[in-house]
Structures are given as structure tokens and as C-alpha cells.
């Protein structure tokens, strides 16, 4: 028999093809097939036949009569056609519904992406489920807990040697070094990483030695953008890059370049050297120390291993290494999943900043709330519409429409609306993104990924069905007889509709009041009298002598260098009150020291090392005793000043002339006590503070220390020039003269103070944005409803006016029902707001009271906005000449 084309393809063609086209099309394909067979290429003939059958499967060829013209498809098409006409006919209401929904969706998308970004930290690592960060918790007593997510260096070797479940252990540290040569020296945070680091984390190496990038201890790897910063368009591989480590400037050879690390990574560095250099960096003793923490440690466990079995083995390993030095339970090592780092505030911050999970969840909830408001808004509007459309329903029912087909009809409308709303919403979100980022300081990017399509389709279905189902049910339930007789429908549905209006008000008033409370709190903490004066104060970080190997000498050498700069700056009239101090206001984490006092109590306090002028620069007030005397050598050596909190904490009566309660301290004497000025952000209460000019005697007596902020001194001064930009010119000129080759950084203390509340500010702005959007949505809803109510009562109003009702009476009549709903909404929202906002305020040590005034103001705003929304139409209805409205029936 002659070869035949594949049967299935032939049948498929017969099935879908329009019969008018089938004979010719099939004939053609067979003819070509026969031609190809004749040339002896059976395989390609068959393949081509199938290809053509598939290619012909297009809309113009498909048999529309039998395949598409079944009832379901026809009705669906018809439904959408009718829906489109209905929507088109009532453009005003359609526009209101569409605008409301679109705004809600825009808000949802923007917030959603922000939340998603926060939640997706570190998710890009393919081995994320097997990577854990190690933490160390030393517990020696109730007040003596040292909890760190940075660890001793020896952990890398210990964990690798003792646990078969662990595939690799890597460490990561970030240290500030001067990098580059000549005039191109910059202060950089250089990563110090284990050579196997790139096998654990997904940071693709794109140039150079991509297999073993840090083979040699003299290798350095750069990120793509930093390779460009230092080498421009030249090939960086094999180039030398000097890094000053301690006293020594070492030449590192660039061995590889890696792609810039994504924003959503907790572990970030722009350049990195091998931790084979640890001995140079931390010193010989740190290599084997168990009580000296610095790098973060990450373990990658084997594919089928469980972290629990590693955890279970930890105590034995600890005790075998630290038998004589700790008791069981005192030295605890634990593991935290990589993906947990960004939003877990219970484990201390390591090298990576930690986000606030509460804010993320609050924003997620708010974005859903706004979306729900928009949906509810649409529902109330379309239930309102149902009044108008009852006749339509009656006629449809008489013609034999089933309830389900009516439901389908009305759902088509809501689906159509939600489809357009999602389209508009997506477009708006993209347009508004830069404004949104700018306004909120968030850094969201809307990159399109294929699964977003599914999300959007889901959103269309969800919004369309959820907000359309109730009106559809209400409409389809209407009784034919009563509709066509013109009877009024039962009132039961109004309760639900009113309930939804109330619900909308609850959310809106809640958002308004929350915004007000947040603003008030932020305003309060930013304007609170901190007991210091930091207006127009500039802070310039100094550099220690590279040769200084002890902290106390590093501090004093930086002060000496600072004095050189100070002399130069003194000649400027616009610069006054120059001082130096180890910490400056606006940064948290001032040096925290601890020791055990004479009575065996574990004591913690913070230390500020200053020159005699620092107190003056910031106007720190002395409560009793005296301040430092610049002329006094004794003050320079041994005088200390406490804050009031420290006096209370140490329990010293009449502190002037006394010592701190501890034997280990060197010679020192208390000469003064200051007010409790706030030196860290207002999230925290004031802690005990010791101010000194000489850290040595204090350092002698302490057993533990922690530095959240670098204690290397900063030069501070007050600038009184007219233009703030001029201070930059002065500083740059004098800095270059004094310290050529070092990078100048400076900042205004005021800006730093503000930056401490950046995340609160961002949060407040995000909430403000959602509030405004939800107000707009709610106003649109009200506008739609009032127009509807007026239209259905236009005759009533006319008659009332004829009988003698004044415009004001009419206005009251129309507004009163909304006013009641609004009042109910306000009443319900107060407890919710109070409860949620108290939770937020608990984050602050210094906080406002949620006074009644906030709620009064918030309610007033809501009321005024509501009346603006309904006002115009209500007034218009009240003014209308009754002749026009009741002349015709």
C-alpha cells in the first residue's frame, strides 16, 4: 500500500477544520505529502504533514459552528457582550467602580512587591535550605548573657572536624580598610571570607579564576561594579590592588570578578580577601580563642543531613574543648537558617542588617485591607445598582432565564470590571513606582516574571468573583411577580449593604487614625528635647595611626591627629565649638563595657571618651559638680563625669569626689554629674554613661566590651555659616592639607539623628499613602451611593419640597443615613486602632499617649471627607425645582 500520512494528524485536522475549508486543505496537504514521498523522504514528509496540520490550527480555520457554538460558550460570549454594554451605558458608575478597584489594586501591587522583597531575602541561594548561620550564647548568670551571631574563628575548624553531617563551613567578616593607591585611596568594607565561600553561596563568578578564586592568600576578588570603580574598562584580572592591613600595605592580586550581589542578600561585600590572612588581621591569639568573636560562621550541611543531629552533638564537642573553663550549659552554640536571618529580631544582628518583621506584616495586612475596601466598595455600588435593574431581571426571568444563568450574567460584569481594573492597576503601579520609591524611601523594583501573569489572573478572578457574587445572588433572587407589579423589594438587603459601608468606614477611619498617631509619635521623637543641642553640628570621623595596635592608643592617636585639623579649622569664623569624642549623637551602639563590682554584681555601662571641649559643643548640662577644665592636667588623666542614670545605677550617694564601685579600675575620680540626655535613639531608655578623657583606667577594670559603633574619635564642630554647602569646601581644603591620601567623610548630626528613625518614617509614609488611597476609594463609593439614593428618591424629594420642606431638611434627610453609618464605623474602629497602635508604640521607650484628640481629629477628617463626597449631589438634589422631578410619571 502507498504510504499514508499519520492517521492521528489527519483525524485531528478533520476534527477541528471548518468543513468548507477541509476538502481543499486536506487535499493540498495530501498532495504535498505524496510529492515528498515520491522524492523518497518519508520521514520528512510525515514530519512536514504534522507540522502543517498543527500550523493550520488557527482561529480562521477552526470549525466555529460546531466547536464554538455550544450553549456555554455562546452564553459566555453573550454575557460579556451584554456586560460590556451595561457598563458602557452607565459610564459614571463604571468609572467609579473601576477607579476604586484600580486604586486598590495599585496599592496592593506596590505594597505586595515591597513585602515580597522583604520576605524573599536570601531565597535566591539554591542551597538555602542547607545553609545555617551559627550563633553563640554564653550564659553565666541572669544579667550576664552574651548572645552573638558573630563567632570565634576556631569554629570553622571545630565544626568541620567534628561533624560528618557538615559539608562545608565558611566564615565571613567585613572590615574597614584603606584600599587603592596614591590619591585613589578609599575606605572600603572588605570581606574576609573562606576560600570555599563561592561554593556555598550563589554568587556567580564571571571573570578570572572561577573555580578557586581565593586559592592564594594574596588574592582578592571584586564585584563587577567595584572592578569598574578601580580599574575602569581595563581588565582587572591579574592587577595589583594595595590594601592597608594594620601598618602594612599589602599588594593583593585580583584573581576573579563576581556578579554584583543581589539586593536581597544578607551576606554582602564588594570585595573580599581570603581568611587565610586571619593571623595578620586578628592576631595570633584570636586564631585559637574561644571567647573572642568576630566573623560570622555559615555551615552547609550535607544533602540528606539534619541540622538537629549537629545541634545534638554540640555540647559534647564544647565540653571536650572547654572542660576546665565553662560549666555545662554556659557555652551554647546554635544554628539559624539562612532565610531566617533577615526578619528574625530575636537573634542579634551580625554583619547584615535585620528588617523589622512587624512592619512587614503590618504592611501586608494594610495592603490586603485596602484591596478589601476596594472590593467592598464595588460590591456596595453594584448592590445599589440592583435597584435600577430589577425590571431587567424580571423580564429575563419571564423569558425563561434560570437563576444560574442570571448569576453568570452578573458575574460576567464584575469579572469584566475587575479585568479592566487589574489592567489599569498594573499600569498605574508601574507609572507610580518611581514616585512610590521616592516618597517612601523603599527600593522596590517591579521586574516581570512569568508567574506574575498567574498572580494577575488570580487577582482578576478573586476580585471579580468575591465582589460580584453577592450582588449577583441578590439580583437573581428577586421575585418575578413582585418586580413586575412594581412592588418595592424587601429591605433585608439594605442591612448587608449598610454593613459593608460601615466596614469600609471602619478600615478608613482606622487608617486615618493610625496615620495621625504615627505622625504624632515620629514628630514627638524627632522634636523631643534630648538635653543636648545638635543644630548645625558637623561630625568628621578621624583616622587612627596605623601603627597603633591597642584600642586606647588608636583612640589617642586619632585625637592627636584631630588636633592638627582643629588648629586649621580654628581660623574660620564660621566654625566654632570644636571638640572630639569617641561617639557622636545619631549613632546607636556606643561602647558598652561590663565588669563585676565589689559585691559580685555584674554591671554594664557605656563609655564616652572626649576631649575637654566636646561637652561644650553639644551643650551637655552639668547637674552637679563641674565639667572638664581644658587647662587641668589632672582632668586629662583621671577625672570622669557620670550621667544621672549611672549615679542611680551604681548607687553612689554624693558622687562628687568618689570612685566607681570596682577594684580593677585605675586612678579616677568623679568630678561631675550630667542630666540624663538621650544619646541613643528613643527606642531605648537612657543607660548609665561614663564620660572620660582617658580610657586607660576604665579599661583596666572591665571584663567585657562591645562596640556597636566604632570608638575611633570623631571631630565635631558647630557651623554658623550662611550656606551649609560651604562647610564642605572648607573641610575638603583643610582635610587635604592635613591628611593627604585619606578619604574625607563627614555628616551633619541632625541628618544622622533623622536616619535613626528611617524605617519608622518609611513605615509612616507607606501607611499615609495607603490611607490616602483608601480615603479616595471610600469617597468614590460614597459618591456612587449618594447619586443612586438621590436618583431613586428624586420624586420623594420633589413632593417633600412641594409640601414645604426646606433645602436644609432635604439635606439632613439624605445625609442622616450616611452619618449614622459613618458614626458606627468610627465607634468600631476606635478599639481596633487603639489596640494595634499601642503595640506599635511599645517599640519606643519614649512615646506619646494615644489621646482622645487623635480619634476626634481622625473622625472629623473622615466626616468632612464624607460630606465633601456626598455634599455636591445632595445640595443639588435639595435645590432642584420640584416641577422638573414630579412633572412626568
Amino acid at each position: 500500500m502507498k504510504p499514508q500520512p499519520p492517521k492521528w494528524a489527519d483525524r485531528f485536522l478533520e476534527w477541528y477544520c471548518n468543513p468548507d475549508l477541509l476538502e481543499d486543505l486536506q487535499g493540498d496537504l495530501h498532495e504535498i505529502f505524496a510529492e515528498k514521498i515520491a522524492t523518497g523522504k518519508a520521514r520528512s514528509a510525515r514530519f512536514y504533514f504534522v507540522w502543517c496540520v498543527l500550523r493550520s490550527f488557527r482561529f480562521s480555520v477552526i470549525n466555529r459552528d460546531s466547536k464554538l457554538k455550544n450553549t456555554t460558550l455562546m452564553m459566555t460570549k453573550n454575557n460579556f457582550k451584554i456586560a460590556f454594554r451595561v457598563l458602557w451605558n452607565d459610564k459614571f458608575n463604571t468609572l467609579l467602580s473601576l477607579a476604586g478597584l484600580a486604586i486598590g489594586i495599585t496599592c496592593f501591587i506596590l505594597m505586595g512587591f515591597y513585602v515580597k522583597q522583604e520576605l524573599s531575602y536570601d531565597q535566591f541561594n539554591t542551597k538555602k535550605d542547607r545553609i545555617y548561620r551559627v550563633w553563640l550564647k554564653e550564659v553565666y548568670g541572669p544579667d550576664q548573657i552574651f548572645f552573638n551571631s558573630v563567632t570565634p574563628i576556631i569554629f570553622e575548624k571545630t565544626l568541620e572536624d567534628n561533624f560528618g553531617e557538615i559539608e562545608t563551613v565558611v566564615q565571613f567578616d567585613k572590615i574597614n580598610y584603606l584600599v587603592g593607591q596614591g590619591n585613589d585611596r578609599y575606605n572600603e568594607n572588605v570581606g574576609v571570607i573562606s576560600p570555599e565561600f563561592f561554593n556555598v553561596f550563589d554568587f556567580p563568578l564571571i571573570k578570572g579564576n572561577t573555580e578557586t578564586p581565593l586559592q592564594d592568600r594574596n588574592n582578592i576578588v571584586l564585584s563587577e561594579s567595584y572592578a569598574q570603580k578601580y580599574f575602569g574598562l581595563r581588565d582587572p584580572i591579574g592587577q595589583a590592588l594595595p590594601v592597608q592591613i594594620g601598618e602594612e600595605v599589602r599588594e593583593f592580586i585580583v584573581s576573579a570578578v563576581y556578579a554584583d550581589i543581589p539586593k536581597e542578600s544578607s551576606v554582602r561585600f564588594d570585595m573580599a580577601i581570603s581568611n587565610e590572612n586571619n593571623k595578620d588581621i586578628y592576631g595570633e591569639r584570636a586564631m585559637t580563642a574561644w571567647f573572642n568573636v568576630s566573623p560570622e560562621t555559615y555551615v552547609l550541611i550535607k544533602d540528606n543531613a539534619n541540622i538537629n543531629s549537629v545541634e545534638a552533638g554540640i555540647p559534647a564537642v564544647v565540653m571536650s574543648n572547654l572542660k576546665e573553663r565553662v560549666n555545662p550549659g554556659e557555652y551554647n552554640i546554635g544554628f539559624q537558617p539562612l532565610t531566617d536571618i533577615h526578619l528574625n529580631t530575636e537573634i542579634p544582628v551580625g554583619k547584615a542588617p535585620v528588617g523589622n518583621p512587624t512592619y512587614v506584616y503590618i504592611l501586608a495586612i494594610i495592603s490586603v485591607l485596602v484591596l478589601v475596601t476596594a472590593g467592598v466598595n464595588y460590591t456596595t455600588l453594584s448592590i445599589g445598582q440592583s435597584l435600577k435593574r430589577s425590571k431587567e431581571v424580571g423580564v429575563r426571568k419571564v423569558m425563561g432565564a434560570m437563576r444560574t444563568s442570571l448569576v453568570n450574567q452578573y458575574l460576567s460584569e464584575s469579572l469584566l470590571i475587575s479585568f479592566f481594573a487589574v489592567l489599569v492597576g498594573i499600569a498605574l503601579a508601574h507609572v507610580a513606582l518611581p514616585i512610590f520609591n521616592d516618597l517612601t524611601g523603599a527600593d522596590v523594583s517591579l521586574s516581570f516574571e512569568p508567574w506574575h501573569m498567574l498572580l494577575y489572573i488570580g487577582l482578576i478572578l478573586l476580585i471579580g468573583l468575591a465582589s460580584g457574587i453577592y450582588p449577583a445572588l441578590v439580583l437573581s433572587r428577586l421575585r418575578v411577580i413582585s418586580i413586575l407589579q412594581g412592588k418595592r423589594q424587601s429591605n433585608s438587603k439594605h442591612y448587608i449593604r449598610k454593613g459593608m459601608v460601615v466596614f469600609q468606614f471602619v478600615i478608613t477611619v482606622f487608617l486615618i487614625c493610625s496615620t495621625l498617631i504615627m505622625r504624632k509619635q515620629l514628630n514627638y521623637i524627632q522634636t523631643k528635647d534630648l538635653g543636648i543641642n545638635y543644630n548645625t553640628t558637623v561630625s568628621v570621623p578621624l583616622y587612627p595611626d596605623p601603627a597603633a595596635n591597642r584600642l586606647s592608643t588608636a583612640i589617642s592617636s586619632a585625637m592627636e591627629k584631630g588636633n592638627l585639623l582643629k588648629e586649621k579649622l580654628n581660623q574660620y569664623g564660621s566654625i566654632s565649638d570644636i571638640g572630639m569624642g569617641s561617639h557622636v549623637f545619631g549613632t546607636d551602639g556606643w561602647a558598652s563595657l561590663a565588669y563585676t563590682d565589689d559585691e559580685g554584681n555584674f554591671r554594664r555601662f557605656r563609655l564616652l571618651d572626649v576631649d575637654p571641649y566636646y561637652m561644650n559643643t553639644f551643650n551637655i548640662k552639668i547637674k552637679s559638680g563641674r565639667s572638664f577644665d581644658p587647662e587641668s592636667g589632672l582632668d586629662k588623666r583621671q577625672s570622669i563625669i557620670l550621667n544621672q542614670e549611672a549615679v542611680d545605677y551604681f548607687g553612689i550617694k554624693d558622687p562628687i569626689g568618689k570612685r566607681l564601685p570596682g577594684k580593677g579600675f585605675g586612678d579616677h575620680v568623679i568630678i561631675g554629674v550630667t542630666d540624663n540626655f538621650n544619646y541613643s535613639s528613643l527606642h531605648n531608655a537612657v543607660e548609665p554613661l561614663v564620660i572620660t578623657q582617658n580610657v586607660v583606667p576604665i579599661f583596666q577594670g572591665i571584663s567585657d566590651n562591645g562596640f556597636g559603633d566604632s570608638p575611633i574619635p570623631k571631630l565635631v564642630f558647630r557651623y554658623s555659616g550662611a550656606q551649609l554647602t560651604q562647610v564642605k569646601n572648607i573641610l575638603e581644603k583643610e582635610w587635604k592639607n592635613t591628611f593627604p591620601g585619606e578619604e574625607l567623610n563627614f555628616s551633619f548630626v541632625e541628618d544622622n539623628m533623622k536616619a535613626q528613625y528611617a524605617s519608622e518614617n518609611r513605615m509612616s509614609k507607606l501607611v499615609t499613602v495607603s490611607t490616602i488611597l483608601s480615603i479616595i476609594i471610600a469617597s468614590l463609593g460614597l459618591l456612587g451611593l449618594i447619586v443612586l439614593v438621590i436618583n431613586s428618591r428624586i420624586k420623594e424629594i420633589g413632593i417633600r419640597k412641594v409640601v414645604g420642606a426646606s433645602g436644609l431638611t432635604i439635606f439632613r434627610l439624605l445625609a442622616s443615613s450616611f452619618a449614622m453609618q459613618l458614626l458606627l464605623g468610627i465607634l468600631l474602629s476606635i478599639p481596633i486602632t487603639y489596640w494595634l497602635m499601642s503595640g506599635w508604640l511599645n517599640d519606643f521607650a519614649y512615646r506619646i499617649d494615644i489621646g482622645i484628640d487623635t480619634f476626634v481629629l481622625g473622625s472629623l477628617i473622615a466626616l468632612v471627607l464624607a460630606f465633601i463626597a456626598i455634599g455636591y449631589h445632595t445640595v443639588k438634589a435639595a435645590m432642584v425645582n420640584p416641577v422638573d422631578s414630579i412633572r412626568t410619571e
Partner: protein
Amino acid sequence: MKRSQLGELEELVLLTVGSLYEEAYAVAILNVIKEQTGRNIDVTAIHSVLRRLEKKGFITSSMGGATQERGGRRKKLFVLSQAGRRALDESMEVRMALYNKMPKLAFARIAS
């Protein structure tokens, strides 16, 4: 009514239909185009172009001419209509007019 524009492939197919006269059906058209231009076009593309041209009224069709290798199925034969002829004439005119202008312009460009 707005005049229908001819696409490149449409024009080619229309010309072929005209030149094949009474013998024009998809496979024949395909073969002619392949011979004349060396272009390898899918038969499905020819089909959709033919459908479009018929819809625009440039060609008319009739069934006829069953053969053995077609499994006894008839062909759809296409003939150029009046409108089709006119459309081809117009498009040729435009082309020729532009073509005739070209050398002068081209030389002018080179000269400057």
C-alpha cells in the same frame, strides 16, 4: 470604503494566481513561488493568504479537479477578480512610477 492594502506576500500570491489562470490552487501557487523566487513558504501560510484575499474580494474560488494523490479530494481553484486585477495594476503603477524616479535621485545624492 477604505481601500484594502496589499501585503508583500499577498501581492506575490495574487500575482501568481493571475499568472496561473484557472490552474491556481494552493500547492500549485506554492510551487510557482518556490520556482520563481526560491522562497520556501509554508503551505499553511499560502492558505491563510488566499483566505484573506478572498475575503477582500480580490479572488474568487470554485471547487474542482480531484486527483489520485489527493485521495479523490477536489482542489479549491482561485481566479483573479476585477478588483484583484485593479489592485495589482495600481500597485504596479505606484512601483513603476517610483522606480522611474529613482535613478535621478540616486545620482543627485551621489553627486552632492
